[in-house]
């Protein structure tokens, strides 16, 4: 894995592409499921007691696919909390790819993941690449009784919805690199488009009003 930050530009002739990736999922009570996955990917670390994200964290990581190809991910690690749900569109609006995380030891988490996938397919970029990641594989490897969602079920759903699918373990790093590499391989590297995402200001003034008010919840009418 290349060093972090934008320093990963390869020499002349190499292909370099930059993509926006958003991480979504239900935040497990207390501990952050998805954040630990990012942490493993970006920093190759794991922290058992990691608390979930507050707000959203912005991180970057570069993946070298082959000698000539480098992919830089700009990652939005969104907080899974319900109260930030209305902010999610902002994070996935221009995303090229998304990782939707669930917890294979918690049955309800796949439902939540499914609803994220649905929302992404309806509202995000048309060509967004979505990967479904069933995390906490280490727990199940150790104690198969803890599994709440079978691999077959999740895989069938992923296939049907057209998603990449991996069962991962942020703790043991199992499949984490593979997950992000698979996404990188699927991205349209040949299109020049995403090369300089930030230099392209969004076209036209965005009308933020409806979102902005919706964001403050129904309480707004109380003022």
């Amino acid at each position, binding site marked *: 894995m290349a060093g*972090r*930050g934008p320093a990963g530009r390869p020499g002349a002739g190499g292909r370099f592409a930059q993509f926006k990736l958003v991480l979504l999922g239900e*935040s497990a*009570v*207390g501990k952050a499921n998805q*954040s630990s996955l*990012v*942490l493993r990917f*970006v*920093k190759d*670390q794991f*922290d058992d007691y*990691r*608390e*979930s*994200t*507050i*707000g*959203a*964290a*912005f*991180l*970057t990581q570069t993946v070298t696919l082959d000698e000539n190809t480098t992919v830089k991910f700009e990652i939005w690690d969104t*907080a899974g*909390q*319900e*109260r*930030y749900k209305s*902010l999610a569109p*902002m994070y996935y609006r221009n995303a090229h790819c998304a990782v939707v995380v669930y917890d294979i030891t918690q049955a309800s988490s796949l439902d939540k993941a499914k609803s994220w996938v649905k929302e992404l397919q309806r509202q995000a970029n048309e060509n967004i690449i979505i990967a479904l990641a069933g995390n906490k594989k280490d727990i199940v490897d150790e104690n198969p009784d803890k599994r709440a969602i079978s691999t077959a079920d999740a895989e069938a759903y992923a296939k049907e919805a057209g998603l990449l699918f991996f069962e991962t373990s942020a703790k043991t790093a199992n499949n984490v690199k593979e997950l992000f590499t698979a996404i990188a391989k699927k991205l349209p590297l040949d299109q020049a488009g995403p090369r300089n995402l*930030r230099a392209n200001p969004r076209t036209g003034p*965005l009308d*933020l009003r409806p*979102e*902005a008010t919706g*964001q*403050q*919840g*129904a*309480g*707004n009418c*109380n*003022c």
Partner: protein
Amino acid sequence: MSHRDDPRSEDGKKDQSTPARPPLPPRPTNLSFFQDNNSNRQATSSRPPTRAGLVSSATTALSTNDVNAYTRLGSVRKLRTVPSQLTSSPSMSKTASRTASDTADDSSIRSYGLASEQAQEESIFGDGLASRKNDAFGTDSGFISTHDMLEEADVPPEIDFEEEFEPVSDDIEQEEVAHEAWKAKKKHFLILSAAGKPIYTRHGSDAIISSYVGIIQTIISSYDSWNNQLRGFQAKDARFVILSQTNLFLVAISNLSESEAQLRSQLDALYTQILSTLTLPTLTHIFSVRPSTDLRRPLQGTEVLLSALADSFTRGSPSTLLSALESLRLRKSHRTVINNTMVKARVDELLYGLIVAGGRLVSVIRPKKHSLHPGDLHLIFNMLFEAEGIKAGGGESFIPICLPGFNKTGYLYMYVSFLDVGSESIRELGLDENIAKEDAVAIILLSANKESFEDLRSMKGYLVHELRKNGSMKVIHKAVQSGRPLPTDIVPGTALRHFLYKSKGNVQFFMPAFESQFSDMQSKRQLFSIYHALHASVHAKYAAVKVQHIVNSTCSALAWVTPMFELYCIASAGTSRNALAQNANKVVQYIQREEERIFLIGGAVF
């Protein structure tokens, strides 16, 4: 702890007639209304003197506070024998009070007035203040009697802090053990909904606290139903303070000799934290739709912020005690350069911009129309520097945050980037890079626009680049590295061990480094308990005390309050009152001389 018996204390009189088990608060404080002040007072003074500095019979700031809050009748006066000397003496002319035996003290006190411009400036505030000033300074008798009276007063008892932050196990089989561990904590914070649902507890699991929460809710709501809000009470050494806000009850239980007002401001900070997560309309809405809502879900992920706050209070937080922030000491010219650079880098979306290094303010910029509320700043500081969550998140964060002082009905969006300025090239901190609070430099940019991330991010990029180019990053780094001066650096040879100085006008405080004797948590807490005691005694409602001197076997301490500043200093035991006063004077002189470096004055406006 005696929650179980508390319902019986609903009425003060009943309380006295019903011998409770275990011993009850002699009187719930807000009931003093209904009671004869006389008996009230006696009940208080019979309390064991553990409550410290403040304590000793008549000046107990807590009780004068309570009593005076409701009545300022002569009967009260009579009871407050010593303080009444304090308050009545201003009527004497200065010369009259200058008896021979007082001369020494008098001169030391007068030197305050001469030495500090600030003391002179006080008179600008007109007669009322001027006469109060006499209270404080002119009356040696006040000074002396306070001192004499407190001579044998203990400063807070030894605090065993070793287990304070250990988690309480929730092993069901060891329920007894868990309950004991819970009770052994010196300080508790509990938050429950008006409907009695637990929302937050610093210690213990639901199973352990549920019965306590039930009792607390019963007590509070029974008072509520009589339209008489319960604000606090005392049971033995434990002080209970209750803050009722928008369908929430926030409860502090402290064995650390803190005053009601101090605990209340801590609860306020916790409430503000909740507001900053949810906004007021959301909070109101949640409970209006379903009063039995479990607020833990909407608050999910912020427990760590609440706990970080709670623990900082338990350890002793000068910024909360003084309601002020600390700035990084910089040359005025350096700060101006940094301010200007930030103004230059500003993007349209920016509302407020802050640079904070090592938990200390470096620079603030704001629009002309909007001032920045100190409470809001405090909230941000707590979030970023007390809780590990965001810092540990590394990289850059974008956080919706409601700043209640600015607007409690909506969110602002806060961009935060932690930098490592120490290394050759300034870089963003990596994920989970453990950097000490003292070394972290944060760029904090606030906007009202939730789409502003990219703009704020590019501003940060430019700002960091410019600050580096003009050498400001090095300046900041150096200032952070050199740390706070020791008391002996400020006043050579001083007997002062530590002090807190609050500049009221700037809402900022200054303190020296902690000497090695305060390096462990326990002795630091002891130090703060003395500060709490001093603070409480000079902040008691209607108490005219402006100078307070506490002596005990471990230290000699002084509080001095003027309209311009508050100074609390602590010297080694045996330091004479004169020496203490002279040192305090020197500290004030030093700070006045260095004011423009120590404090961030004004900040830049755009």
